[in-house]
């Protein structure tokens, strides 16, 4: 039999139910693999006891003949943005060092209620601000992938959910949670050759998730294939009265609804996503993706989203503005770090704590946000950005009159080397050019691996759907997955 850690979510769930192995065997196998993968720096905290306890409960329930919970026997990784009761949660920032939440986030609680266990807390870009995992206060995550050029340059696992992507790709966990504000699930998934879906804004509770930009933040799963993502999403989504923007809707049976047959569906190819200096390989993969969807029965049409080029600048007003407001809570009074220089007053304590506790990218964004919200500038920046955002959402509304789904590349490049873009904030921001528009409009979007580039690195394709049509997004992604036949995995060097 294959090694247990080679199994995905569905295979573990089904094998456990079928009596092929115990939940405890699975949990221990993954925990051992996590413990041996320190070189990747994917985990900030390892919690083998949490995984073992959930596994023991699953084994006891199975022995007692009880009906299995949906995720019984499945251990997962938890992005460190989710508050976990009794387990340190830092959002990869020095300012939250030592914070141990006395409560559980809405999303993680649902997963534990469904029988899942936690292998540990996953590294990430600090406060989810970054596209390469280089803004973590606790060191870079190293992608398990390497270029096929014989060099050993350390590559970015993408971000902000870079610990999640690296851990799933390296088979340290069969699935993980991520969060996506402007692409933080989809871009890292694409960089390491796995799948990840950001559901419609409001599907997953934001309660107990460390806030970055509240009108954009959405949790979602990252796993090896579309089915595994559907299973995890079913057990993460759902109404939560503690989140004012939570959608009061039933959670569809996405896994049961999976079908790669796209007859009767129309898929749009947005002309504006064909950006200047896009690598030829990505353009070729995009065309191949359209062929795959046609082969699955869909009709492919050219469409236009005219305000696409303004999505990134609008995002870099809205997200920092919301961040500057959300991060005002880190004041050295209620939790986390306090820096109190000798003789400092209260205002000086705030300023010293925040100077010491926030990393450079977080400071940059808080200051941009503070600037665009400051007196005299609010209308010119923030109000204008929210108007442009309305236009971007209207572009999508209009395009849905012509098609049901959109197909685009996930990112404008394959994984880059660590350090390659970190000196130029705008070059880093441009990485999210294909993922940000759907975030601004709150739409469900998924990345699936499509193939490898000439350097042997994974490339992703993105499917965007109408609000609440996660099923359509999952199904088109499944059709791509079935035809891409992506089986490549990073050779183990760690």
């Amino acid at each position, binding site marked *: 039999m294959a090694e247990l850690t080679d199994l995905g979510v569905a295979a573990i769930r089904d094998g456990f139910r079928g009596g092929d192995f115990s939940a405890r065997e699975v949990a221990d196998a993954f925990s051992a693999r996590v413990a041996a993968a320190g070189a990747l720096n994917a985990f900030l905290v390892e919690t083998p006891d949490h995984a073992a306890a959930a596994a023991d409960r699953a084994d006891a329930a199975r022995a007692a003949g009880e009906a299995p919970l949906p995720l019984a026997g499945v251990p997962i990784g938890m992005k460190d943005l989710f508050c976990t009761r009794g387990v340190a949660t830092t959002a990869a920032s020095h300012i939250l060092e*030592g*914070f*141990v*939440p*006395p*409560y559980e986030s809405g999303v993680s609680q649902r997963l534990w209620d469904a029988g899942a266990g936690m292998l540990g807390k996953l590294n990430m870009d600090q406060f989810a601000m970054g596209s390469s995992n280089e803004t973590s206060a606790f060191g870079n995550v190293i992608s398990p992938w390497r270029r096929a050029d014989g060099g050993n340059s350390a590559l970015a696992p993408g971000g902000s959910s870079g610990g999640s992507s690296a851990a799933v790709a390296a088979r340290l966990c069969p699935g993980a949670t991520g969060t996506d504000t402007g692409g933080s699930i989809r871009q890292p998934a694409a960089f390491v050759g796995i799948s990840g879906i950001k559901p*419609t*804004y*409001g599907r997953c509770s934001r309660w107990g998730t460390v806030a970055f930009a509240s009108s*954009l933040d959405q949790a979602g799963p990252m796993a090896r294939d579309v089915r595994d993502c559907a299973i995890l999403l079913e057990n993460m989504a759902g109404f939560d*009265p503690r989140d*004012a*923007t939570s*959608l009061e809707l039933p959670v569809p049976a996405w896994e049961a609804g999976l079908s790669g047959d796209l007859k009767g569906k129309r898929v749009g190819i947005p002309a504006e996503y064909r950006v200047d200096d896009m690598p030829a390989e990505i353009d070729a993969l995009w065309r191949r993706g359209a062929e795959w969807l046609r082969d699955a029965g869909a009709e492919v049409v050219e469409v236009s989203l005219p*305000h696409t080029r*303004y999505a990134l*600048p*609008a995002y*870099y*007003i809205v997200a920092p503005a919301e961040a*500057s407001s959300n991060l*005002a809570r880190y004041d050295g*009074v*209620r*939790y*986390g770090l*306090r820096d*109190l220089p000798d003789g400092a*007053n209260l*205002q*000086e*304590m*705030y*300023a*010293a704590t*925040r*100077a010491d506790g926030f990393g450079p990218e977080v*400071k*940059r964004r*808080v*200051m*941009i946000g*503070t*600037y665009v919200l400051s007196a005299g500038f609010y209308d*010119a*920046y923030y*109000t*204008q*950005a*929210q*108007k*442009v955002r*309305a*236009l971007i959402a209207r572009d999508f509304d209009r395009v849905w009159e012509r098609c049901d789904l959109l197909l685009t590349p996930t990112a404008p490049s394959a994984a880059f080397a660590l350090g390659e873009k970190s000196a130029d*904030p*705008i070059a880093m921001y441009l990485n999210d050019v294909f993922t940000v528009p759907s975030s*601004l*409009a*709150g739409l469900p979007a998924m990345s699936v691996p499509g193939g490898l580039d000439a350097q042997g690195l994974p490339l992703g394709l993105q499917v965007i759907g109408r*609000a609440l049509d996660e099923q359509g997004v999952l199904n088109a992604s499944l059709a791509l997955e079935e035809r891409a036949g992506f089986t490549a995995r990073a050779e183990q060097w760690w």
Partner: protein
Amino acid sequence: MSVDEATVARIAKLARIAITPEEAARLAPELGNILGWIEQLGEVDTSGVEPMTAVIPNTLRLREDRVTDGGVRDAVLVNAPAAEHGFFTVPKVIE
């Protein structure tokens, strides 16, 4: 868009982040570049467009006006860098 060091110092003060003059000098061109880049939004004609207020149409829920939380003082204080007698403590603010 050019941002001078005095502007950086003013923003940092509003954001309650202590910065040194050297940091202000380094941040000025950096913030200037980013603000210059986002200023391209000014070229979009938004006349007659309402700013977005909700990403996905949703109704604000009302609930009965009664206490549903509380009584967890120790849990609230458990992560405080400094707490005494059931309160958060801070440097003296009144002379």
